[in-house]
């Protein structure tokens, strides 16, 4: 695999570091790809894979380190520049114009012009575009018409269009981020074949996936990231799923028995607080069942796209379920909207507080009071009692130690941790029975994180049942009484705390074993 001059690698990244507020996303990471080589890149959520890819594709700038292409140092200025250097990135959410044809997408931004004066006037040579698109698609061995509208294609076909675009741009390196996450088995097999075909043409491929079997099938070697460090590289012959999982989770994790007290004995009497059976939303969540006791913290673990957020949105009525039974304190519930869930006592702190949780232009007090307005109003809603509203907000601000200069401060000016507390405060003012927390500490600093953890424990101690969705294994392990692991929309297993080791959770989360969910 000899390159042109000296280095055997087409791409070399040396000592790459990147810091975000509160987190070192990458710490002196090396990464390299030779021409015609397929390199697998694996790691837990938050290990730094996406950050590395974004630096490579020009979306982020690195803080330190160097990038060499064919031995020459380069500064990647932005996504366009990366593309012109020969790096094509295929993201999970495709960057295609859905209303345009396949050919128009393949040549998006680089439309061939007609010869002569017509070309100088900006007239596009549609025929050449279609002809060349057809040639590239044939080369890939896929039957897609260049005239087809992209929005009508299947996910697998759209991916082929993305790959065709990379070929048409004469990319030397193709980066694929979770390319198989939404493909069926047959399409996965085809895609892996095409990846090998790209490599045999001398194109380097970076293949990022949570599905270790697929990585091992296609990659020449696998690089493992953990907490922003490169913790290992295994050539295909030495790599096994077990070895990779060990590298991925191989940090010291305290199970935190001090933090999570056992479920109160009294809670076991009578029906469980919440009982879920056969919860299904076609294509997203399949036959999910579990129980939740009063005062219990049920951790929900799983990799990106495992259906965790989708599952809790069904419980909250934010999306409609196609099937399933939910019982609260033994009584069956039909939840058709968040309002009904809230009235029943089930409340959700959504994963994206800025887009789903808060009205950023409204004040801290108004955000806290939003679901309590009816209770705060007199004359059947005609007059919101502002004094009571301020009192309610003030109680929560003091209780949760929300740092804000005034109740009238707009929420957009608060820090991430304090914003998250505002969303929590909203529900604590309502006396929830079941509180669902989706990634409650994402993007907030360490101090605020500890406070939120403390708060979660004290809420559970007061008898609230808590469903904690988190991508951070240490958080799940430190807080949960039991851990529900999801994989492809299903329950891969429910582990009691004693059995919930990082290895066991990762094993289930990567789909190596789908247990019948344990029902007690």
């Amino acid at each position, binding site marked *: 695999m000899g390159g042109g001059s000296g280095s055997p690698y087409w791409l070399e990244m040396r000592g790459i570091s990147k810091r975000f507020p509160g987190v070192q996303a990458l710490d002196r990471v090396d990464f390299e790809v030779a021409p015609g080589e397929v390199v697998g890149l694996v790691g837990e959520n938050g290990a730094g894979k996406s950050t590395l890819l974004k630096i490579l594709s020009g979306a982020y700038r690195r803080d330190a380190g160097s990038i060499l292409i064919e031995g020459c140092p380069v500064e990647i200025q932005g996504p366009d520049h990366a593309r012109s250097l020969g790096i094509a990135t295929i993201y999970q959410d495709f960057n295609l114009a859905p209303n345009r044809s396949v050919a128009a997408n393949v040549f998006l931004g680089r439309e061939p012009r007609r010869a002569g004066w017509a070309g100088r006037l900006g007239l596009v040579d549609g025929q050449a575009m279609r002809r060349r698109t057809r040639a590239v698609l044939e080369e890939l061995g896929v039957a897609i018409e260049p005239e087809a509208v992209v929005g009508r294609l299947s996910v697998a076909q759209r991916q082929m269009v993305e790959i065709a675009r990379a070929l048409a741009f004469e990319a030397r390196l193709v980066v694929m981020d979770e390319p198989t996450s939404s493909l069926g088995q047959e399409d996965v097999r085809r895609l892996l074949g095409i990846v090998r075909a790209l490599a045999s043409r001398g194109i380097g491929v970076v293949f990022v996936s949570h599905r270790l079997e697929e990585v091992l099938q296609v990659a020449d070697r696998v690089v493992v990231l953990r907490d922003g460090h490169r913790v290992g590289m295994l050539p295909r012959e030495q790599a096994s799923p077990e070895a990779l999982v060990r590298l991925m989770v191989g940090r010291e994790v305290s199970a935190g028995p001090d933090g999570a007290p056992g479920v109160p004995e009294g809670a076991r009497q009578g029906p469980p607080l919440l009982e879920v059976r056969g919860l299904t939303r076609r294509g997203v969540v399949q036959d999910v069942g579990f129980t939740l006791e009063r005062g219990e913290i049920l951790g929900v673990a799983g990799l990106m796209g495992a259906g965790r957020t989708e599952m809790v949105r069904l419980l*909250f009525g*934010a999306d409609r379920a196609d099937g399933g039974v939910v019982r609260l304190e033994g009584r069956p519930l039909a939840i058709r*909207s*968040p*309002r009904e*869930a*809230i*009235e029943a006592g089930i409340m*959700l702190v*959504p994963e994206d507080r800025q*887009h*789903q*949780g*808060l*009205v*950023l*232009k*409204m004040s801290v007090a*108004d955000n806290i*009071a*939003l*679901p309590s*307005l*009816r209770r*705060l*109003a007199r004359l059947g*809603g*005609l*007059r*919101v009692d*502002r004094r009571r509203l*301020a*009192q309610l907000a*003030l109680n929560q*601000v*003091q209780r949760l130690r929300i740092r*804000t*200069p*005034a*109740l*009238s401060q707009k929420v957009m000016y608060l820090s991430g941790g304090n914003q998250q507390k505002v969303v929590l405060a*909203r529900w604590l003012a309502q006396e929830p029975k079941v509180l669902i927390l989706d990634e409650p500490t994402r993007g907030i600093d360490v101090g605020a994180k500890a406070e939120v953890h403390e708060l979660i424990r004290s809420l559970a101690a007061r008898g609230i049942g808590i469903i904690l969705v988190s991508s951070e294994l240490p958080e799940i392990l430190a807080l949960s009484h039991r851990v529900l692991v999801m994989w492809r929309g299903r329950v891969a297993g429910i582990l009691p705390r004693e059995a919930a080791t990082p290895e066991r959770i990762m094993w289930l989360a990567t789909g190596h074993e789908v247990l019948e969910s344990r029902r007690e």
Partner: protein
Amino acid sequence: MEPSGQARAAEVRRGAAFLRMQELGILAILLVMSALLAVRAPQFLTSTNIFNVLRAFSWIAIAAFGVAMVIITAGIDLSVGSVMAVAGLAAAMLLQAGHGTVAAVAAGLATGWLVGAINGALIAWGRLPPFIATLGTMSIARGFAYGLTGGWPVRGLPASFNRLGQYDVPVGPWQIPLPVLIMLALAVLCHLFLTRTIWGYRIYAVGGNEQAAALAGIDVRRIKLLVYSLSGVLSAVGGILMTARLGVAAPTAALGYELDVIAAAVIGGTSLMGGEGTILGVLIGAAIMQVIRNGLVLMGFPAYWQPAAIGAVIIVAIMVDQLRRR
């Protein structure tokens, strides 16, 4: 409970509220414009002229209160001009058929409510973009106006009805036109509605972040139905007052008024992105529009060129406001 430091800080901030008031910028623009006009055209400041200006923008302002609520939810209502015409016509046709003023006004309001509710239903349940839904009803309502009248205006309305638009109420030394008093009363009501009732809070929440509002248990569709219905009713109020003032209901009445109404709301600080806007701002915005119009007339500006001047002033006013906000 003792007021805490935070609560006290909130009180202090309220004291400075006037200086931080969103409407301050456009209020200044209005005052400067009026002052310039008063110097250039002394008749501007006569009470007759001032009340004429007020009356002329009263129906625009009333319709703009409703449209502002729609825009606060990040929507738009293009049907207001047509609704004004149809509501006025509905009232006039009932009067012509021999019904009383009360019945005629009720019919006009019901017509506005109906069109507004259809808008709301199309947008909330039919999931149409507000621009498209109200573009459609704008044309449909205008078509009804032409179709029902055969294109002829309805004349000869009874004096009891025309008084609604023409009567001047003696208040102290002044004769204040009734539409102006109605506008002021509705301004107060709409302001209280938006700032004091749970529906007002929810309207701002839906416009500020629809997803978050839904996840906080707010029935977003009902809020949308509510604002479009209100917009229809308030436009109908404006249309009825305008018809009463003119004493005639023409199918071409209020043609293009939707743009004046939207401009008034936007000049008044209502954000097209949703979540922001006040009734006081809308009132000032509508006043600015009319003062420009009146000023151009008083200064002898050629009538045919007025739309160009008004457009330019709208752009400048909003640019100044944007600069101030930064």
